[in-house]
């Protein structure tokens, strides 16, 4: 039994086809990510699953429930972090946790949760006076206050500094490790690669790829790059002879060699040694999800 099944979901706003025939499944205890540029349809999709928006057509089942007709039962069992959600500015951290806990049949002990979120010393602080990261953490805390089986996180790290972002990643992994399922959206390929067990890439309301980050990258069949510096320019032909090398680029003292296959780096280093060529600053660059995105959509992720 899948946690979520979506079959041919469509939702338009006037002429804008925000979600244009999307189908996917989410399995128990996985972190499922949806990544795509601004306006790709991530929020529309996630909010159709939460029951906040009504799909134009298509079948949606979340924890075996219909979000439109069984919203009350569903809301007891899910946790939601909205992209555009907020609390009254004058509501304090402790009060927010308490009031939200009171809405559920089976709330957790929320005090330890506040500590886990690193907000123990902000217990009496009003929401409006929290920093962006603290607000975000509180909103995630509210999404966990009913010990949900399934957690929706819409752009949880947008606007956070790198350190806060990493802390957030650990939190999300913690949620999964406690046996929950997570559906998150993000703009950041790095985040998707680091966090998600499986990933859907969405553009213009359509899923253009769906797999684990590793498989997406491997499926790209892209070239690795080996980059290093040399003292004097060397003829390209010297490198082209090395098995697996597909292209060579040189500019001033930098050499970039493109190629495929596992032993590429070893063969290049051996060739340099045997040719008695001195090199420095050698590193390899693997293709990443950004390359996958560019290959699939023909454009940069962040424009």
């Amino acid at each position: 039994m899948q946690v979520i099944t979506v079959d041919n979901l469509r939702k338009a706003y006037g002429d804008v086809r925000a979600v244009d025939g999307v189908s996917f499944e989410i399995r128990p205890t996985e972190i499922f990510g949806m990544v795509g540029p601004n306006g790709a349809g991530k929020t529309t999709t996630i909010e159709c699953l939460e029951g906040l928006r009504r799909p134009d057509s298509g079948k949606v089942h979340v924890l075996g429930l219909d979000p439109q007709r069984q919203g009350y039962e569903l809301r007891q069992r899910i946790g939601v972090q909205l992209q555009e959600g907020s609390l009254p500015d004058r509501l304090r951290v402790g009060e927010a946790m308490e009031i939200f806990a009171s809405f559920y049949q089976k709330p957790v002990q929320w005090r330890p949760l506040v500590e886990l979120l690193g907000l123990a010393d902000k217990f009496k602080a009003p929401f409006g006076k929290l920093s962006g990261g603290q607000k975000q953490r509180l909103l995630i805390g509210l999404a966990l206050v009913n010990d949900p089986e399934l957690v929706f996180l819409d752009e949880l790290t947008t606007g956070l500094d790198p350190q806060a972002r990493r802390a957030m990643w650990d939190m999300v992994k913690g949620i999964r490790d406690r046996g929950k399922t997570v559906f998150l959206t993000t703009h950041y390929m790095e985040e998707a690669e680091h966090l998600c067990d499986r990933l859907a890439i969405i553009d213009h309301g359509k899923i253009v790829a769906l797999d684990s980050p590793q498989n997406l990258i491997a499926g790209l069949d892209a070239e690795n790059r080996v980059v290093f510096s040399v003292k004097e320019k060397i003829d390209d032909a010297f490198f082209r002879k090395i098995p697996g090398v597909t292209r060579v680029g040189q500019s001033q003292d930098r050499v970039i060699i493109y190629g495929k296959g596992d032993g590429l780096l070893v063969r290049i280093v051996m060739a340099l040694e045997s040719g008695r060529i001195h090199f420095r600053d050698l590193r390899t660059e693997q293709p990443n999800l950004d390359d996958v995105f560019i290959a699939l959509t023909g454009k940069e992720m962040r424009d």
Partner: protein
Amino acid sequence: MRGLGKLVLMQIKLYLREPAAIFFTVIFAPMLLVLFGAIYGNKPSPFFGGRGTIDISVPSYIALIIISVGFMGIPIATAANREAGVLRRFRTTPLRPAAYILANIAAYYLMTLAGVIVLVIVGKAGYGMRFSGNVLSCWLGFTLSALAFFALGYLVAGLAPTARIAQAVGMILAFPMMFLGGATIPMEVLPQSVRNFGRFIPSTYVVTLMRGLWSGESWAKHLTEAAILGGVLAVGMLLAARTFRWE
């Protein structure tokens, strides 16, 4: 039900932390009372049918408090919470939408009532306000008036596209209600033309009803006011429910 009580308490706490709301609900009207009390005292005057300035001001100012909550407090807070995404956040929980709105109305009602009680205490303790009505009857009149104006407040919030517009429209409606219907300046003092205009604004009926009940008149004498305010409540509620938006 327990959850509802908690929610009402939360709304009241938030209200108490809003200085502007507190000012217009519990300070402004008693302040006016002290001001006019200092100038005119509370001596019986034939001008007010044998009553003093304070005697007629207290029931009139009840309308003032109701107007400020209905046309300033409710539209601004409702539209601002909608705009900030607070309403959506509550919508993602199992809390029934009706329960959220009910708790909100209850909190506004209790705060308005608290304002009225402070006003009455100041009138009584400071100026020996005379009261010859029936408490239950006055409370009913107050409740009818307050709920009718709250419905209009939610309607303004529902119709206004943004919080700023809700605020502007609320103000534009609140000022004539405050000053042209006898809520602040007694009707006896207003020129005839203004009094004629007053028939078109609902606050006039709140003032007439409350002043009447305060002086011991029966509901039978105020069927017009009761019918108009009841109508405003019914139609206002219907339209408010239709225009209410969570986002």
